[in-house]
């Protein structure tokens, strides 16, 4: 299905700690706007894809936006692992003719809503019974375990994580739509911040945001006739490694070889674009260590070199691989990674606020901590 399907419309709400309206209304709004961006009437929508954690259901969305007969609908699990998988699964449905106009979306009021880890339901997750009773309560604690081990095995440092936090903050400070626009972050700020779960501090954590995003997919032939420059789904993949566990991946041979390694093998198997050919990367960054681990998983550097890869401006604008050019989950908005997808599309259209000159290829990843997914997009 290489390059057979294109992303032709994108839209997003403003991002804020609190937005008016329900998750369903925000979802419907961005889907209609993404169709308008594409120049396609919503009545043509016949494919729907979102996250299993999405609260706006397909039936409600379809009747609200005025979709026609829907012939494909599906959801992808594991929260922050799902985003590129939703787009990839939908692209597969478009490529195989199961639908002709597909919409993927995520709407989440995580800024004004409850923290999932604070709810009793979080303890009901299968593996939580082997970690949560002892006070490993939050996603940040679960990832801090991996980062402490990475520091021990590969010499990762807090400055490596600071490099990530500061670089994406600089991106956000050039993006007026980013939640952290106008809020510079210095290395001193990073090191002075309070601990959340040692060895991770406040600025290793993503934002808590209300927001919604959507994108529209059609066959490549049709994309040529639409109003936006097509962005092609070149390759996509999911990854769930042998004996892997979501978040608490402590019972496999090597927890530092996370789901991204599995995902990347499949991603590049079907791709003419390799790690060295990437012009920009949108890396899932709920926590800064996931960015370092993802560099290694997706082959942009060698194993154990992810920390060093954050140095020398490599990941900033003008660097070897500009990363999270809209500010990512750390500094633009945290909407389960869907803003990374839209920013990948903007880079390939040539319309990012932090545009990489001549950008032709983009990597978009999901969380390197749960059953995951990734996209390679090209123009």
């Amino acid at each position, binding site marked *: 299905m290489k390059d057979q399907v294109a992303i032709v419309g994108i839209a997003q709400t403003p991002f804020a700690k609190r937005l008016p309206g329900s998750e369903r209304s925000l979802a419907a709004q961005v889907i209609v706007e993404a169709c308008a961006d594409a120049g396609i009437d919503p009545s043509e929508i016949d494919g729907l894809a979102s996250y299993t954690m999405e609260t706006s259901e397909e039936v409600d969305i379809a009747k609200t936006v005025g979709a026609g007969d829907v012939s494909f609908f599906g959801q992808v699990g594991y929260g922050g692992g799902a985003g590129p998988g939703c787009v990839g699964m939908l692209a597969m449905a478009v490529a195989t003719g199961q639908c002709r106009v597909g919409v993927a979306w995520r709407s989440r009021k995580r800024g004004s809503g409850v*923290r999932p880890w*604070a709810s009793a339901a979080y*303890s*009901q997750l*299968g*593996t*939580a*019974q*082997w*970690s*949560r*009773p*002892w*006070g*490993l*309560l*939050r996603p940040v*604690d679960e990832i*801090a*375990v*991996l980062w*402490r*081990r990475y520091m*021990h095995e590969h010499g990762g440092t807090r400055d490596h994580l600071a490099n990530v936090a500061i670089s994406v903050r600089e991106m956000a400070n050039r993006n007026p739509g980013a939640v952290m626009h106008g809020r510079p972050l210095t290395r001193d700020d990073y090191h002075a911040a*309070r*601990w*959340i*779960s*040692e*060895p991770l501090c406040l600025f290793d954590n993503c934002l808590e945001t209300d927001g919604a995003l959507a994108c529209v997919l059609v066959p490549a032939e049709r994309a040529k006739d639409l109003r936006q420059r097509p962005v092609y789904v070149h390759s996509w993949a999911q990854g769930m490694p042998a*004996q892997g*566990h979501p978040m*608490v991946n*402590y*019972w*496999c*041979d090597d*927890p530092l070889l996370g789901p991204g390694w599995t995902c990347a093998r499949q991603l590049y198997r079907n791709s003419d674009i390799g790690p060295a050919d990437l012009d920009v990367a949108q890396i899932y960054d709920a926590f800064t260590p996931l960015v370092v681990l993802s560099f290694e998983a997706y082959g942009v550097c060698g194993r154990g070199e992810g920390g060093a890869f954050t140095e020398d401006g490599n990941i900033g604008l003008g660097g070897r691989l500009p990363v999270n050019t809209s500010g990512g989950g750390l500094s633009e908005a945290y909407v389960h990674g869907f803003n990374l997808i839209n920013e990948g599309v903007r880079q390939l259209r040539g319309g990012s606020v932090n545009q990489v000159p001549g950008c032709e290829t983009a990597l978009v990843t999901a969380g390197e901590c749960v059953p995951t997914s990734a996209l390679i997009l090209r123009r």
Partner: protein
Amino acid sequence: MTIPPPFLPPPLDDDAQPFWDGCALGELRVQRCTDTGRLIFPPRPLSPHGSRRAPEWVAVSGRGTIWSFVVPHPPLLPDFERVAPYNVVVVALEEDPTIRMVGNLVAGSDGAIDQIDPAGLAIGEPVQVVFCPLGDGWVVPRWGRVPPG
């Protein structure tokens, strides 16, 4: 005897009960593949190895080393926030270091999870399971330092 809180009693799945039954008897138990002898954790209805038969439960030594650790700070659930910062250790078992159990380093079976100075924790440190009796019938495995020599 009861030990200081907090402990968040886990909702158990269908396969977990023998683990907790073992704790009540002072045994740290994991599953073992009846074909290959490989140890299995967390528990599940079939061994993922060999001919995929139901595994058996066996006791392990309770010796291991600290594979990683964290020190959570607020915001936390109220019971944990009261004692934060505290330690959480992940312990690799001696019999199979790819089985890593989450727990806390304590000074003894009645020790508190915020008692040991986290600055002294180190990856690779040898530890031994200790069983901490709680109210409501829970006996909870935690970890203690192994005396030198």
